[in-house]
Structure formats: C-alpha cells, structure tokens
C-alpha cells in the first residue's frame, strides 16, 4: 500500500480524460480500455480504481483512496471533508436554470410560486436562496428536461455543456447557477501522512493541465478544445448521472 498512492477515478463522461491526464502527467500509465474487465489496476507508481462519480468523494474521505478525480458538480451534492487541490479544467459544464420557451420565467419574470425539477437539489437550493426566491424543488434522478413538458415542474436546474439537450426539449437558459470542471481531491490525513506524494501528484497534474491549456482567459469556462461533456451522455444509464 505504501508503494504508491491510491487514486479513485470517476466512471462515465470524465473517465477517459482522467486516464489520459494521469498518463500524460506520468502519474500512472493506464489505458481506459483496461478497465473494461477490471475495476482496480495497480501500476508501479499508483493503484487506480474506477468507481461511480458520486462514490469518488466517499472513497477519498474515508481514506480508502488517498486522492481522486471528480467533477465539481458531484462535490456540490455530496459535501465531504476532503481537500480540493487542483482545477483540472476538463469536463467543463454549467449548472443552469432553464424554462420552457415562451414561459414567463423564460422572459425573465419570476412567478410568485415556482417548482423546479433537478438532480442537484443542494446546488439548486443554494442558488435560489442566494436570489431570495422561494422555490419548491423536486428531486429527480434523470431526464430532468422532461419535467416541464409533462407539467411536473415549471423549470429545471440542470447541467449543460452544449445546450443541445435543452434546445431539443424546448427549454431556454434563464440564468447560470454554477460552473463545474474536474477537480483533484485528497484525503485529509493523506495530505499530512503522505504529503510529499500527494503534493507531487497535485503539482504534476497542475503542470500538465497548465501546459495543455491554450491561452484562454479565465479557467473555469469550457474551452473549445476540450472534449465537452456530451449532452447525449447525460440521460439515464450513464453512471455519472444516476444516483
């Protein structure tokens, strides 16, 4: 176990980029395809496990892994006691409030009572609270875009990368509630008891990410060169979205 760090990677949309980043940074030479048949791969430098995105913070907080890669959107919803060390910049997406085309809300007028469907109740609650809006949240586990069309909710708070899924469901973006990219997180104790290894990992990933970044101003916005989180990857069945 002391031979290398134990790293948790999120299955789903971020997985291939995460594997590539670890290889590029020289942290662990792993190929995403090898995880088709096994969930844990030990290299001379690190032991890497593939888990569901929502489980990455659990593995890291409990000390089963020293560090992990996970989308900020996952961290919004599962506040765990971890260090968030580096913005890895890939997997960029935004959390937006979207409403049906032609609705009052779509035109910027907030009705007195509002029901919002979302997979992100904590982030949505924080967003509405900061605006001072009393909104009833309906937690769904997938296909949130459907809710307004079926009369389940007046609007949605959901993740979007390209906006295509919203448009296809006749929804328009009203406001941005947050921005997400992949993050490197670390266990509290590992940062102390294996500080050299964890800090080296953070430095290596930071270097690689900075080197790859085109001179775009700002860091958290989705860069054009990045393989954006595909909207088609979001509906049910993707490990990243079903909780």
């Amino acid at each position, binding site marked *: 176990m002391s031979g290398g760090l134990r790293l948790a990677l999120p299955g789903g949309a971020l997985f291939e980029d995460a594997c590539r980043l670890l290889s590029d940074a020289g942290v662990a030479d792993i190929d995403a395809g090898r995880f088709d048949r096994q969930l844990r791969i030990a290299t001379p430098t690190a032991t890497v496990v593939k888990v569901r995105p929502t489980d990455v913070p659990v593995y890291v907080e409990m000390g*089963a892994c020293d560090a992990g890669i996970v989308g900020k959107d996952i961290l919004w919803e599962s506040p765990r006691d971890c260090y*968030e060390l580096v913005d890895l910049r890939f997997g960029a997406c935004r959390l937006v409030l979207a409403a049906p085309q032609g609705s009052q809300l779509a035109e910027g007028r907030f009705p007195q009572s509002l029901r919002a469907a979302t997979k992100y109740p904590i982030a949505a609650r924080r967003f509405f609270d900061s605006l001072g809006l009393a909104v009833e949240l309906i937690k769904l586990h997938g296909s949130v875009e459907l809710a307004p069309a079926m009369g389940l909710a007046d609007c949605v708070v959901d993740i979007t990368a390209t906006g295509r899924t919203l448009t296809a469901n006749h929804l328009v973006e009203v406001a941005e509630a947050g921005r997400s990219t992949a993050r490197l997180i670390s266990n509290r104790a590992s940062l102390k008891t294996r500080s050299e290894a964890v800090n080296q990992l953070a430095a290596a990933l930071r270097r690689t990410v900075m080197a790859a970044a085109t001179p775009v101003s700002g860091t958290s916005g989705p860069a054009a060169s990045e393989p954006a989180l595909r909207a088609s990857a979001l509906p049910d069945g993707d490990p990243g979205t079903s909780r």
Partner: protein
Amino acid sequence: MRGGACLDFARMSALQNPARGRAGGFADWIGAAAQRRRTVTEAFVDTFAAWGYEYLATPLVEPLDTVAAGVGGGLQAQLFRFMDADGSLLALVGERTVSVARVVSTQLQGAQPPLRLCYAGPVLFNRPPLGGRRREAMQAGCELIGHAGLAADAECIAVAAAALERAGVTGVQIDVGHADFVPSLLDSANLDAASRERVAGALRGRDLVAVEEALRGTEAGDAERELLLAFPTLRGGREILDTAGTRIGDPRPRRVLADLAELWEVLGRHGITANVHLDLGAVRDWDYYTGPTFELFSADLGFPLGAGGRYDRLLAAFGTDAPATGFVLHVDRCCDALLRGSGENGKVDALRLGYSPGRAGEAQALAARLRQAGVAVALDLEPAIGNRGEPVVDGAARLDDDGALLWRYRGEEGSGVEALLAARTEGAR
C-alpha cells in the same frame, strides 16, 4: 460468541425478526474489539492522570443554549436534539469541552489555576447514516485551563503523544499549526472585506481551487498570495518558519512564527519533535481556536486520531475569562488504527477452569487464589465427568479426580498451580 467469528446464515435468516435491528452508524463492541476499546480508553485516562489531570464525568445531555454558547452552527446542526419536559431544548453532547468549560465556570469557579482536567465518554452525532461514519464515538481528552503560555500548549501536545504511545498506537504524526497564522495573513494581504470573506470561506472548505479564484483580481500582496495558495505545502520542520519569515513583513504573522519557534523549542525539551510537523496552512476552526493548534495522524487511517489547540475565548462565553488549551483523542479511530497496523485481533484470555465431581470447593478456592494473583479465571458451573486423561485445550485448566491441576496457558503446558503462576509471569513480561 468468541472464536465463532462466522455466524450461521441459514439459522439467522430462519429467525427473521424486525426487533433485531440496530440503528445505522451505531455499533456493538464485542469480544476482543470491546476489550481493546476499553484498554485504549484506560491507557489514555491513565496517561492523563500520570500528568496530573483530574478526571471528571459530565452528562451525556446538555441544554442546547449551553452547547450553543460554545460550539458553532456546523457542529450544532449535527447533534441529536430533543425537548425537555418544560419545552426547552436539550442536545446529546457531540464533544465534551463545552461541558468542562461549564463546570469550570460554575462548580470549579475560584479554583486555583492552572486547572488540569480530563474526561472520557461517548459523544453522539446525528449525521445521515450510510455515510460510513460513526454516529456514536468514544472520546477522551484533557483541558488545561488558566495558563496563557506556550508551555501549556506544549504540555497538551506531549500528553496526547504520550497517551497514544501508551495505548500502543505507533507511527503517529503530529501536525502543529497556529489558528492566527492564516487570518493574520488575510488581514495583512490588503483584501477588501468581501474578498477576505471569500478567501477565508474557501480555505475553511479546504478548497484550493476556490482560494485561487477568490484571490484572482484582488490587490493581495505577492508574498501573501503565494503563501495562501501554497497552504497545503507550508509544512515541515523548524526550517519552514525561517522560509516563511523571509517573505512576511507584517508584525502579526511574524509574531505567530515566533510563537511557533518557541513552541518547537519546548516540544524539543519534551523529546517529541521527531514526530512533529509544523503546518502553517493548518485549516482549523478559526472562530474557536485562538493560538497553537494540533492534529494527530496515523498512516493507517484516513482520519485524524485526535486534535486540539488553544481556545482562549470559550470560557468567557460562560462568564469566566480564562485562557485555556486542550485536546481530544478519538478512541474508536485509535482502535481502528491499532487493528489496521497490526492486523491482530487481540484475544480475551480468561483461563477456563474445569473440575471433576467432588472437587467444586477446591476449584473455587483455586480460582480465588489465581484471581488474586492476577489471572482471570472463568470457573465451570458444573463438574466435568469422564474427561480424565484427555489433554486440555489452550486457555483451559482442569482439576482432576486425584486433585492434580493440568493446564495449557498462553502456549505453555504444565501441571500444578505454582508452574501456572510462573507461566503467567513469563507471559506478562
């Protein structure tokens, strides 16, 4: 139950009964694990006593108002709360420093400082279950009240280290920081109030990415910016104080560095600097702590084994203005670390004493003698018939028809009580 680690699943499921449930996040402690938990707690309290800390017991329940005077909203939200007969709110305690502070400000008011007090007992958290986190935990801790100097801070660190050592927890690393370092850096960084709050919030959330974002576009000085961004790496031996000192001009953070240098000296006299790291970026509850802070880690565990620090403002909330420092050790996490470190599951070793018919009185007298000599003995409740000549199993002794005592104990085998007592002494060595 002991020895039988495997349960018969078929038999268990045949007895399906909802009355056998147990609340999530709570645990039964059985056999060797229960024994270990007790001996660890005792090792801690014995150490505290050896350093002159007086044991006190406080209730499991405190009025919510009392709790609220001492702990912040974050911890309060994690408490089991309920209503008293008169409608006032009560809470099950989630830590015991507040209770000790209440006692110091009431029953012990006027006692000659410094006060050295210690405690051990369960605390409870109403966290959502299924998170893998305990909701009931055993905590043991010390409070050193009425002394504002670094000697008191160093003593607490030394007591905590000694207690872990006595309990057999090895490979402990002690991270020493200072609650005023990051706030003083923030104050000297030339930030406006809103940016300062954003940076502090991000540091509190251990979110380095947000710290970077919050610092971007502010007027923060280069040295402060660099130190704030490097907070997880501001860690090392005595030398990091000099490294940081060369970059900081403001007197307040410099005073913190001078304090830590002096603390390092005192810890050196306690002989524990080999396991100590100075951690300038330590993220602790800055509203609560006012001076040096520390956390204890083991490489075997993802959570701190204990934590402490100076909290000079707490007593004032109870009407006694006195400086104070202290720490808490998490007994259950220490047990986890012991189990993971050695992999050994310990053993409860009471000697089982059997006897032939007609020898009950003799066996009772023998058991009493052995117990007096410090051997734990479980005496059979009925005589054994017809096992003459058979070998005894380890951890058992038999008083035969002819009055001979045959035994196997701690891997040794023999006959006669004198040899048994000698074997006990050997084993204890």
